[in-house]
């Protein structure tokens, strides 16, 4: 069975685009966000978790249902999604690693490519991936903290940051602070990658992939043991051809970032890299990035 490739990154780090691009490689299969390793057993995706920042709404299941419908039935319709529900019911007591292994086995010899940003919220979740797939490869995708945080704050007022308890605490105030989430998620990934052999991990700046896609996609393909010829690279330049690069049937609409689903076509561009030392736009007190965030961003190659 071909070992899968996982993208690890905070949300809003070009993961949807890069995942769909790699998934279009003739020897790969790009999956939607399965979110399987968020939980231990498959049924837990339906049980949900409790609390004010619970993440297990119905949307978390859309990726899995769409993937099963596509892989087992060859199309995503309401009827095939209902079949996928029955498929999941039969496996509800399974360990989610086992469920993922079955999916990977089904698309073998194609290499499964997946990214669920929720995996990087906890080292334990990433360790569960590694237990299920000891030979898996991991791409740590990074994005400039200011650009990532701005993008994060534009969605539901930065609600994701709360899931990571990303806030600043003063003597008499608490303030939502997305750079805490950027920092802590990347730290989680670095902690996890300590246990992955160097040859099976790679770090990339999302901005570099956007600016020089052919070069970096070919580089990833070579590292992953896939073809890197012109035909393969050209295929990867068309993420919009993925069966998951659009909204799904009415009973499983999402499975990915809605912005990506609405406009999956890739246009090469060179993203601007903001300053690491100026005030950040989401704060009104004129403060900038925290020293720890600046230090980590510099480690990632941002000046």
């Amino acid at each position: 069975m071909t070992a899968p490739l996982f993208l690890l990154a905070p949300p809003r780090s070009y993961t949807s685009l890069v995942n769909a691009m790699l998934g279009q490689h003739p020897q790969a299969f790009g999956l939607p966000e399965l979110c399987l390793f968020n939980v231990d057993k498959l049924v837990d995706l339906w049980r949900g978790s409790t609390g004010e920042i619970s993440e297990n709404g119905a949307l978390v299941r859309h990726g899995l249902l769409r993937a099963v419908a596509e892989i087992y039935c060859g199309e995503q319709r309401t009827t095939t999604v209902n079949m996928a529900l029955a498929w999941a019911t039969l496996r509800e007591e399974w360990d989610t690693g086992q469920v993922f292994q079955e999916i990977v086995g089904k698309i073998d010899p194609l290499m499964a490519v997946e990214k669920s940003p929720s995996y990087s919220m906890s080292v334990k979740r990433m360790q569960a991936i590694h237990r299920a797939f000891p030979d898996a490869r991991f791409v740590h995708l990074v994005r400039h903290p200011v650009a990532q945080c701005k993008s994060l704050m534009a969605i539901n007022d930065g609600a994701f940051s709360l899931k990571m308890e990303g806030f600043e605490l003063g003597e008499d105030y608490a303030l939502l602070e997305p750079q805490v989430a950027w920092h802590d998620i990347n730290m989680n990934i670095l902690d996890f990658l300590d246990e992955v052999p160097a040859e099976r991990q790679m770090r990339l700046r999302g901005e570099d992939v956007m600016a020089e896609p052919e070069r970096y996609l070919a580089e990833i393909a070579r590292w992953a043991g896939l073809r890197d010829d012109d035909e393969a690279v050209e295929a990867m330049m068309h993420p919009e051809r993925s069966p998951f690069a659009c909204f799904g049937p009415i009973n499983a609409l999402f499975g990915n970032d809605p912005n990506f689903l609405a406009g999956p076509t890739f246009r090469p561009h060179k993203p601007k890299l903001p300053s690491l030392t100026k005030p950040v736009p989401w704060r009104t007190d004129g403060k900038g990035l925290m020293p720890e965030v600046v230090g980590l961003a510099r480690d990632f190659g941002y000046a």
Partner: protein
Amino acid sequence: MSDPASPEESGRKRLSPAPLNPETGRPDATLMSPQQRALRAAMMDAFNAKKARRFLERQVKHINVNRDLADGIKFLFDEHGRPPPNAPLEDIIDERRRIEYQIKWFEGVLLELNNRLVRVKEVEDYAFEMLSRAVPEE
């Protein structure tokens, strides 16, 4: 595989004020001090109030303009107003019918369960009454 990585072992500090929960590996606000929890709760209240206000603003806009709730799902359609290829109108109608059918079915089951509950309660009450009458004779 080597020993599991953890922030303690790696020395990589986190910035979140909430300590990591060793069971989930995620920051856990319940492990903070009461004062910190209160500050966080105030922040959450402000966040939720803002969210609710925005939601209400959107709803009021729908009602005021043309009661067109479909505006809320406009993002699903392309620039020509075509629905997503995977979700033709027929499927949307079928899904609506299916949900209506399931609601009716659940309502039927609920009614049946309520009737059974009433009957079982009657039997239970009668049994207790009989028992209470029988005890003094013993």
